[in-house]
């Protein structure tokens, strides 16, 4: 029982861990990782249900565990390796989507994966064997897109992130919208997600002109 108390205690830390993407964009009181998990789970359930043919229970569990590794690994952003310390320069950097060579992409991706896997292993180390394996498998599926559920949820996770970016932009005029749209057109390929994005675009850009 002690191991379970400790596990839930550690997980609770996500309620106070801010999402780094908003911190580097100077969003005050930005959402926590736990808050992101909450809405992502809800979106995964409802959107997954709409899409049909997916195992919703599997998706919901995946949604709940997908960022647990960040308790120890921390939250990473695509800007981390190029982020200037100077505030003005940082603002400039945030105006464009970061581009890397394929070798750099591989290095960044491997580094993130290894750090996060290590973080997850540490967190679930003392859990009962069955649940430990289930969490690890769900995370691997999310990371590698091994099943239709894994591939669908990977896009749902980013969709929630995108929606939050639009909400902050509407409220604070940041983060800059250009990089988000540039990235989204390369990242999403699920027709249902793309339709959802078009609706988000209509909702958030109906009156306001986006500023890059």
């Amino acid at each position, binding site marked *: 029982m002690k191991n379970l108390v400790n596990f839930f205690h550690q997980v609770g830390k996500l309620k106070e861990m801010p999402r780094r993407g908003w911190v580097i964009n100077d969003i005050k009181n930005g959402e926590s990782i736990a808050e992101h998990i909450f809405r992502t789970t809800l979106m995964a359930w409802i959107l997954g249900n709409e899409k049909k043919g997916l195992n919703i229970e599997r998706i919901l569990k995946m949604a709940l565990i997908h960022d647990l590794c960040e308790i120890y690994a921390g939250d990473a952003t695509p800007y981390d390796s190029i982020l200037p310390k100077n505030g003005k320069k940082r603002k400039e950097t945030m105006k*464009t989507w970061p581009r890397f060579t394929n070798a750099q992409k591989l290095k960044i991706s491997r580094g993130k994966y290894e750090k996060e896997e290590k973080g997850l292993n540490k967190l679930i180390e003392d859990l009962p064997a069955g649940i430990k*394996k289930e969490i690890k498998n769900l995370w691997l599926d999310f990371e590698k897109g*091994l*099943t239709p559920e894994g*591939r669908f949820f990977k896009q749902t996770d980013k969709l929630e992130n995108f929606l939050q970016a639009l909400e902050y932009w509407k409220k604070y005029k940041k983060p800059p919208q*250009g990089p988000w*749209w540039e990235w989204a057109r*390369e990242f999403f390929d699920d027709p249902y997600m*793309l339709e959802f994005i078009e609706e988000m675009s209509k909702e958030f850009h109906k009156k306001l002109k*986006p500023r890059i």
Partner: protein
Amino acid sequence: MDGKVFYVTKEKLQELKKEYEGLVVFERNKTIGQEAPKPFESEDINPEFISFQEDMIFLKLRIEELKNILENYELIKNPPKEKQIFVNLGAKVKIEVSGKKDEFMIVGTLEANPTLGKISNESPVGKALLGHKVGDEIIVSSLMKKTYKIKSIKYEVS
């Protein structure tokens, strides 16, 4: 399953076939109470395999998914020489966007991994690049217009 066609590279197909065959043998042996065959006990060969062990639900799901892919795939091949001036599936495309250079490989949805530069042919950018040649400038997105200029196209699919 939804009858979707999976476009895969030869490399990916071999990887999927090897995994499918290994998992089927493992599942069969597991059912009759035998241990996993030697090559699949090694974490070096398949790091995920260790995690599949004893999780029969996930094992069955993965086998079912692999079977569906292997029954509904289409191999990504190099187009004939005269058509290699155009972007198609399997093309490695160097582009310039917002003054920055990048490199994509156009792949099917199964292999897509934008973090590694593998862009799905079903994504708006992947779709828009298809059929274009070096020097073309393609505008993507209706709301935030981005221009992708094609700098080079290469095919290295074996």
